């Protein structure tokens, strides 16, 4: 049952689209979270990271860009993905906009890190690329959720 308490009634198709978007965001964020958890475990346990290109992941991990203000970058990713998942549970414009804000921040920072990998460190870590792709897709999906006007307004529950 769908209850609409706001003045503007959303289309049924809009509610369905929002549901599909939320499922897609959930799936991509979980993939990104998995990558971030793996890299965080590798970082703190000192284990060797599984890498397709010999030595590339270690090169990236041992560079100064592997940390931001002393915090390992995978931990920042972990916080970002958890943040996006939390915003999915907030069924309001605030939740959508916050999710978009976190994804956009992650996307922009991923662009910076990818630039550093390509032009400063000169090594590519496939896990970092995977996470960057997740953040890019999440930014697009959360932006669609924010921009669509036919989605359920704040007080809609489905």
């Amino acid at each position: 049952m769908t209850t609409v308490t706001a003045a503007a009634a959303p289309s049924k198709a809009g509610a369905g689209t929002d549901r599909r978007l939320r499922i897609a965001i959930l799936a991509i964020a979980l993939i990104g979270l998995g990558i971030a958890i793996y890299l965080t475990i590798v970082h703190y346990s000192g284990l060797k990271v599984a890498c397709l290109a010999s030595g590339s992941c270690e090169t990236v991990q041992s560079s100064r860009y592997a940390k931001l203000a002393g915090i390992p970058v995978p931990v920042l990713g972990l916080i970002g993905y958890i943040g996006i998942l939390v915003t999915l549970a907030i069924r309001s414009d605030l939740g959508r906009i916050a999710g978009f804000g976190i994804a956009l921040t992650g996307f922009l920072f991923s662009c910076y890190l990818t630039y550093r990998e390509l032009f400063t460190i000169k090594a590519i870590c496939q896990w970092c690329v995977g996470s960057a792709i997740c953040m890019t897709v999440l930014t697009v999906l959360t932006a669609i959720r924010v921009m669509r006007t036919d989605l359920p307004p704040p007080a809609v529950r489905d």
Partner: protein
Amino acid sequence: MRRMQMIIGVVLIALVVVGVAVAISSGGSSAKAPTANSAAAKAAKAQVDSLLAGIPQSGNRLGSPAAKVTVTEFGDLECPICKDFALGAENQLIANDVKSGKVQLIYRSLCTATCNFSQAVFPVQQSAALAAGLQGHEWDYVELFYHEQGPEGTGYVTNDYLNGLASQVTGLNYTKWLSDRSSQTLASQVSADEQEAAAKGFQSTPTIVVQGPKGQAQPQQSAIDYPTLESMIKSVS
């Protein structure tokens, strides 16, 4: 309208947050390694002298050769993570376990951070440390290098920088060191360290290997903390 304002606000916040993050991340680039006579270098020298006072050194070894546990670090002097490890867990290890004669510490070479920018400088800088080791001062040199390490990829490791570090090592015969540091034998030793690291599958620095009477602990390829190092030592003691 209010919604659009919120979206614009969020975009601006994201840009500001990432801008700050990029500034912090790139921040070290404008910094420089301290010069030999600077206050920072003098403070580093005082710390290193105090840390290593009374500990026997020979070649790349710090500590008593009779110590039952050997901790080997495969490091790159320009690697910032190695610096974190050296000035953190490793210095605690030196103060607590090497000084007491329980552990001996070995420094070996593995090119990581340096080779991201210039492979040619790696044997030169590592040989400079080995040359100090010929006079029983390698660990003074290694410690001073990490204390005064410059920003990665800025080409700060010049002859002046290496010579400046040597001039700070207490008790080092500078003229002899200067002559020794271009020795092909030392460059070959650096190369041999790298080959051994490659044969063992080590690809990142610092890589820590702990060996004792009970065998060898699982090597750790990151800047582990002191409690982890202690538990590795305990497992082989």
